[in-house]
């Protein structure tokens, strides 16, 4: 049952990909939808392998997490920088025997969060100095892959990883009262931010007239209509100039702050508007079919917009409800898991899924800049789909470990620490929470 929401989302995603890949008469068909079917099947395989596979007795969860971390956050991220395929702005893809490509950053996020969860929860019983050292090590463990991902110029993934890891650490360090206070303080701060963006996008008439009077016409005038030129934004965001790691950011932010928002954002917003409440119908969205929303990104970065154009607000809300169900399932599984590492990982995974969804939807609604984040399970993409299933698989493994399923299924202990009694989790003595940050 816990796989039903993601599988439903995957099904919708495959149908959407089919819709945009089997074009109007005359043009050749693109095979993305078939690949997506393969990716979903592969993801399911990975899910069951991760959730149920037996490991040698001497393999601990920490060791597994560390190995994964080493492979995905170290080896592959370095490899992609050395021999990765360069597309667009960055070098993010590794070719697999010329058959397909993978994006190691997606796997690195899951592996990194898992390793981090194991690391920060392995401090029970340690002396404060040792615990502190481990937490510092955790910070380094976040910083290294994040830096490598930034070097790939995949700032969106770096941000998502840091945000999820940050929530994981903070939830480990702070009490829930402190977290609540932080949220209550942070949320009102979003309001003036939104107002500022709105004012930048819709400057007073006097400012517009001033810009027009300066003789700036056409695109330049529109760019300046937000009150900031690309150069001004760029000087803040991209100190390295046009050749730096952040050289592509000024244009994106300038588009975000401008009234029209750039071609992609404008067409994405148009998709949602034209979809209305009930949508135009499957494969009847003209913005999508006619390619006004570029076909290269329809099924990836703007899958939600395509869904909204086809099925309207109703379809969009259904997808969001499925995501909410997935989030609930993740949190519930983490909550009822016996392991604190499971809870930490569940929190981080939930944050990751949530941020993926929120940013993806926000891009279509022009709430956030266009940074190319896929909708989990809905967007086309092998790496993100398989890595998300792997994350769910890990959580299922934690959950099953509490229920004793792996042992019952395999007939032996899976070898992870904290499961000394193969008879079941009921006799499992929960490790105590580490003292750092806790008022004990």
């Amino acid at each position, binding site marked *: 049952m816990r796989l039903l929401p993601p599988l439903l989302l995957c099904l919708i995603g495959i149908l959407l990909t089919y819709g945009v890949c089997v074009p109007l008469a005359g043009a050749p068909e693109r095979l993305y939808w078939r690949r997506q079917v393969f990716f979903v099947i592969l993801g399911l395989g990975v899910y069951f392998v991760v959730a149920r596979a037996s490991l040698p007795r001497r393999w601990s969860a920490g060791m597994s997490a560390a190995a994964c971390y080493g492979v995905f956050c170290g080896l592959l991220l370095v490899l992609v920088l050395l021999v990765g395929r360069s597309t667009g702005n960055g070098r993010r893809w590794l070719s697999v025997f010329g058959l397909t490509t993978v994006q190691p950053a997606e796997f690195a996020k899951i592996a990194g969060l898992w390793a981090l969860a194991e690391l920060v929860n392995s401090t029970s019983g340690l002396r404060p100095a040792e615990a502190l050292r481990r937490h510092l090590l955790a910070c380094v463990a976040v910083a290294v892959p994040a830096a490598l991902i930034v070097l790939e110029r995949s700032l969106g993934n770096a941000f998502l990883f840091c945000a999820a890891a940050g929530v994981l650490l903070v939830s480990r360090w702070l009490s829930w009262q402190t977290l609540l206070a932080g949220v209550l303080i942070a949320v009102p701060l979003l309001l003036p931010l939104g107002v500022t963006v709105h004012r930048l996008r819709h400057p007073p008439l006097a400012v517009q007239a001033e810009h027009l009077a300066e003789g700036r016409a056409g695109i330049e005038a529109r760019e300046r209509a937000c009150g900031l030129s690309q150069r001004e934004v760029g000087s803040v965001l991209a100190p390295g100039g046009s050749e730096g790691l952040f050289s592509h950011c000024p244009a994106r932010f300038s588009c975000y702050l401008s009234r029209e928002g750039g071609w992609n954002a404008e067409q994405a917003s*148009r998709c949602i508007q034209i979809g209305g409440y009930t949508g135009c119908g499957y494969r009847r969205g003209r913005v999508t079919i006619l390619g006004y929303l570029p076909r290269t990104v329809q099924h990836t970065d703007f899958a939600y917009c395509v869904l909204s154009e086809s099925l309207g607000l109703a379809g969009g809300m259904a997808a969001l409800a499925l995501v909410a169900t997935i989030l609930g399932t993740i949190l519930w599984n983490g909550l009822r898991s016996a392991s604190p590492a499971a809870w930490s990982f569940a929190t981080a995974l939930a944050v990751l899924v949530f941020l993926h969804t929120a940013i993806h939807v926000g891009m279509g609604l022009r709430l956030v800049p266009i940074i190319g984040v896929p909708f989990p399970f809905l967007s086309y993409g092998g790496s993100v789909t398989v890595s998300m299933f792997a994350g769910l698989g890990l959580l299922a493994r934690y959950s099953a470990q509490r229920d004793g399923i792996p042992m019952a299924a395999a007939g032996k202990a899976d070898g992870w620490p904290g499961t000394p009694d193969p008879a079941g989790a009921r006799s499992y003595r929960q490790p105590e929470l580490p003292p750092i940050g806790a008022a004990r």
Partner: protein
Amino acid sequence: MTSSESQRRQAAMVAVLAGAVMGSALLFAAVVHARQASRRETALRTFERDAARLASVWTYRAPVCDRYRTPLNVTVPEYALAVDVSRLRDIRDTRRRTLDLVEAEVSRLAIELWPREAQFRRISRDDLEAHLVRASPMPFILWRNVDTDTVQRWLMVRDDHPGVTLLPLPKRVYHLPDLAAAVRGRTCLTRRGAPGVSSHCDFPDLTMAGWFGAEAWRDADLSGTPGVEQLVLDAVLFRQGTVRRADPEVGEPVCLTLDMHIQHWAQEALRGLRGALVVMRTDGQILALADSDDGVRPTLAEGTEAWRQWLRGNRRDGIHRCLNDQTPPGSIAKLAVALAALDAGVITPETRIECRGCVPYGPHTVIACHKASGHGSLTLYEALRVSCNAYFLTLAERVGWERIAEMMKELGLGQLPGEDMDVPGGVPSRLAPLCSRGAIYTPAYKREHYETGVEALWRPIDTGFLAIGQADTQVTPLQAAVMVNAVATGKRVKPRLFLDEPYAARDLRLSVASREAVLQGMRQVVHHPNGTARTARVEDVVLASKTGTAERGSGAAYRKDVWLVAIYPGDAPAARIVLAAMAHDLSSGGRDLGPRIAELVTAIKEWEMWTDDQRRQWPGTADGEAVCQAQR
């Protein structure tokens, strides 16, 4: 409470908190989404405006026909092979890949159809790239005027070339290309949309438009209304469908009043001369408009460039000598003097006036008669017969320039066709904008054109010049035809070149006796042994005629322009056709033009006995077979 329970409670709190935050965020997204979804209608309108483009659809250009409604200038389909890039490319393809695709397709097609050099032009990569840069939804035309063999070969392989289409394109074909070329006119290619939408028609079709002649004068009728197609274009402007289509409206055929047989004979009559010849029915329908340029100017079978060069060199003289060649009328002006004198009662036809070889206008100024010894005492008939200058100079003194000028104006000189005709039936003539007005030599004219001193004063000798058609009186051959037609019928008709123009004529204040007297004199011009147009005599035909000779220049530049006007037959009630011929640089209207007019009248006499079917058969000209001229 144990520590594990405390821990679980804390985790639950965090879960609730996280769930609340995430739920709020998703709810916020839902609200924003709902707000955007409420703007559906506006967004749809904007999108449809952005995605739709108008393209014009070519229409069938109606034919230009002769008076028997036989098409002369015809539009026929010409087949062309074109490639529809929209159907070949994937929307994700880059321009370079699309270019490769199209190039490969074109190469494959060319090989399969085994190109023939004359028909298949080489398609360069630059041509294809230029089409792609234009991002036009229109098909790219590869080869035009594809013959039937190639079409059949293409039909056999068309399933292998889904992006290639066979397009019917309009082509203008000109039958009898050397007859009345300037009058029938020609089309040229232009890029225009449908009327009313042309200003915002994004893709106006390359279509035919009238260039000169009847094709230009009646362009609005012939061209019809191009259709409009509202296309749905994808993001890179390739055609993805059609929203609506307003079918084009076919133009209306335009029928000329010309008879191709008479036109052919008239052109033959002018061969070797520099002049013009009008053959007109007495109801104003023009049967032939021939000018000597017909042998010089390109035929309609020749290319656009030849015509462009000819028009560039000759346009300032007007499109046709019949309409624009203004020449002093010489002695044919004497018809107006005679009518003015008879109508005013100054003389009777039998009144005799003495010719002594010249008429003095001062101590050293005379105007000589062409017979230096003088004709002696002459009646009006005799004076017209021998075209005596002295008689009409004396008569003009008695009548006065006012009556002569008035009569000339009544007869249509110095006026555009159809002008000053206060009768129902449509004035002015469709020809009026193309014609020259000519001029009547009067004191007002002289004041206007000779501004200084004595030269601007009207002298008695000027009345003499007016009477014998010298000095600055200017007449076009068409005006001469209208004048002589007025003598024959007593009406000033509106000359008509198009069958759909209504008949219009104004009764002149001329007594039948006066006209009959003048006609009698004109008949003697042909049939009397001393008549100046006796060379135009045709057996069994009563012809009334008048010759004229106008002098211009002096010394080495001295030239004579000659005229011959005729009424066929010369009996007033039976008159059906009038002719007016003019030629430059000859010596005598009777001697030089008479035999040619006689041949023409002989042919017309035979033509009158033909049935309509015989008249519909085209004459056997040098290029008598239908000659096609590709226009696209």
